[in-house]
């Protein structure tokens, strides 16, 4: 007589696993990676490979040291590696890229308990750590297609820096304020994966279509930033197409672990990101609007979560204690 398995209901299951979700995010990041290779050369791939390799290795070693299950199979470390690489300039020394990846996985993620437990986005936090530790290496931008002509690539300013320059200064460095089209395609200076709004948008729409991310976050984030820019008399299109807005809005502000669960909470989160990005860009001295906004909102997430719980069908409102 064979023994029957007894387990609580439900007995039916669907087959989307954590690793499927992560794999879809990797797929969604491919267009931006390809764009990075086109504009900044094959070194983009090398930087990405180093980041991914270090991330996976760090995850493996951490889990081993902590005597926990091996979790590299869930592909979340791969996602973190790719996203971090996209946040780095293509000229970054490889050891710095590897260090960033190690910080993201070992310090920001595994020390807090691993997948789903970290309070801050690993890639964003690692980028900020690198930015503070190696400011010159982290801001050594090359112009698109420079890798083709010279041994030493010509460095140039990013659109956000260019926007703040006077006409004389622009002439001096021999650069122009880029057109909307260049900004949209990504034909501008910047981190290797952040410049092409088109590629990031494609990936983001893919994730929305596959129901991996909730469109509320990127929509509210980008929308509120554009609106604030418009109200302040700025150029909303330039605002949202430059810097890391699309990368941040579609791939980092939608991170499951570090953002609120409910749609209400996600809207608050996106709004906060938009406002903080605007404030930092226009009143701050650090060129880190998107990264800091997401990190700050990550920290606020538990509080947002408390205030934005879902409405429960038929529930009686909690009776407040009368004193």
């Amino acid at each position, binding site marked *: 007589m064979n023994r029957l398995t007894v387990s*609580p*209901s*439900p007995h039916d299951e669907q087959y989307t696993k*954590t690793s499927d979700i992560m794999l879809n995010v990797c797929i969604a990041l491919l267009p931006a990676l390809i764009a990075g290779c086109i504009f900044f050369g094959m070194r983009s791939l090398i930087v990405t490979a180093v980041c991914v390799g270090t991330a996976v290795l760090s995850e493996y070693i951490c889990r081993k040291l902590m005597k926990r299950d091996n979790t590299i199979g869930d592909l979340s470390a791969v996602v973190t590696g790719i996203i971090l690489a996209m946040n780095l300039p293509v000229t970054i020394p490889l050891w710095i890229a590897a260090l960033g990846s190690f910080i993201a996985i070992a310090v920001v993620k595994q020390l807090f308990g691993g997948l789903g437990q970290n309070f801050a986005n690993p890639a964003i936090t690692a980028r900020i750590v690198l930015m503070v530790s190696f400011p010159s290496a982290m801001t050594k931008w090359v112009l698109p297609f420079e890798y083709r002509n010279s041994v030493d690539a010509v460095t140039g300013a990013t659109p956000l820096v260019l926007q703040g320059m006077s006409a004389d200064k622009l002439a001096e460095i021999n650069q122009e304020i880029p057109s909307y089209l260049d900004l949209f395609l990504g034909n501008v200076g910047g981190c290797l994966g952040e410049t092409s709004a088109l590629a990031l948008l494609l990936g983001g729409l893919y994730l929305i279509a596959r129901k991996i991310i909730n469109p509320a976050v990127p929509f509210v984030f980008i929308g509120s930033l554009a609106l604030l820019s418009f109200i302040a008399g700025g150029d909303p299109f330039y605002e949202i197409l430059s810097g890391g807005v699309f990368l941040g809005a579609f791939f980092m502000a939608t991170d499951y672990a570090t953002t609120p669960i409910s749609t209400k909470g996600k809207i608050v989160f996106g709004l906060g990101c938009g406002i903080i990005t605007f404030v930092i860009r226009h009143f701050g001295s650090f060129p880190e609007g998107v990264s800091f906004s997401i990190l700050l909102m990550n920290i606020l997430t538990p509080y947002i979560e408390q205030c934005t719980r*879902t409405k429960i069908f*038929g529930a009686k409102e909690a009776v407040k204690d009368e004193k």
Partner: protein
Amino acid sequence: MNKLKGIKLKHRKNTDNYATIHLPMPQKVILPMVMHMGASCTPLVRVGDTVKVGQKIGDSDAIFSVPVHSSVSGMVTAISDYRTAAGVICKAIEIKTDGKQSISHEVIPPVITDKESFINTVRESGVCGMGGAGFPTHIKFNPKNEIDTLIINAAECEPYITSDNREMLENTDDILNGITLIKNMLGIKKAIIAVENNKSDAIKLFENALKDDDTTEVFELQSVYPQGAEKVIIYNTTKRIVEEGKIPADFGVIVINVSTVAFIYRYTQTGMPFITRRITVDGNAVSEPKNIFAPIGTPFVDILNFCKTDIEKLKVLISGGPMMGMCVPDINMPVVKTTNALLAFSRYDNRKTSACIRCGRCVAVCPLGLMPAEIDKAYKIKDIDDLKSLKINLCMNCGSCTYICPANRKLAETNQLAKALILKK
């Protein structure tokens, strides 16, 4: 709130077109004294007694209980302790069948004169909700408030199960007569037959039959699980919200399963109590899926053999649907009043549970708007206050959260444990 959330399941209604056939008479039947929700019955027979079909063999003084009748004629061979699939310990009467199926003299059409005698008749029939929960029907028929709407639950939202659908196709008139009877007896003006739109044949039958009737309407539900859940079906058909701590009758509604309605009508005509039920037999270990009529008390193994099941390969046996049904630990356990389906599988879910990634899918599918991921966290640290404010008590265990979880976390199970935890304190 406009639309309650839910999940689209694969229907797998393989047996939709399989007319119900009778199972050959089993050698013996086992009749537990608890087959409904409520108090256990006391056996009225002793070992060695001969019993006939329809004879009452167990009853209770408790109001929240229904009697048990013999489904066969034969001899009582044992009365022993028995553990139901839900874990309740009660007595069970084992009867060896004599194959004659001679009918008891107790089986006579009941005399119904008023509401009170009708409710008593319903109790005496031994019927309880046939949809799966087994709530004693006569209790529902005795509300404190005035009822304006009778909802006939014909959603049958669980995959595989087609027994209610077959009842609708095979016994349409019994259902309509039953509705009229209940409406008249309880003074209810309006009835709604709520059917999921994947049962178009049944919907057509009802629509044709009800052309000239403006007190009973057919309501097409979307095929989204769990449409058949009581609170969900009430909201979707009447937009009424059954509040926490209240029952449907408080909002003027009674919900009753479609097969139960048809049975009640037949009982009033024949006096034959609830001793046979329709069961959908399906699952990947079953080579001949069927809809069968089986005497209540039939050991599952007889049904599995009748439907050519590879018992050697059997790994999981479920009484009920795959979402809310209960695992059967032993193939010799019997059909009970709430067995609407028997599903046999040669595989089981052996995926590992991994960490919650906070993707929010469980929150996105919960029809009641609960937050299973948060409940899971609060349960882990035994935060009673937070569990209460997360309204864990409202969870109806539909299983949608566990179903959708990419990390294979057993959220519905945790919810039940959390419920027990807040009751303890």
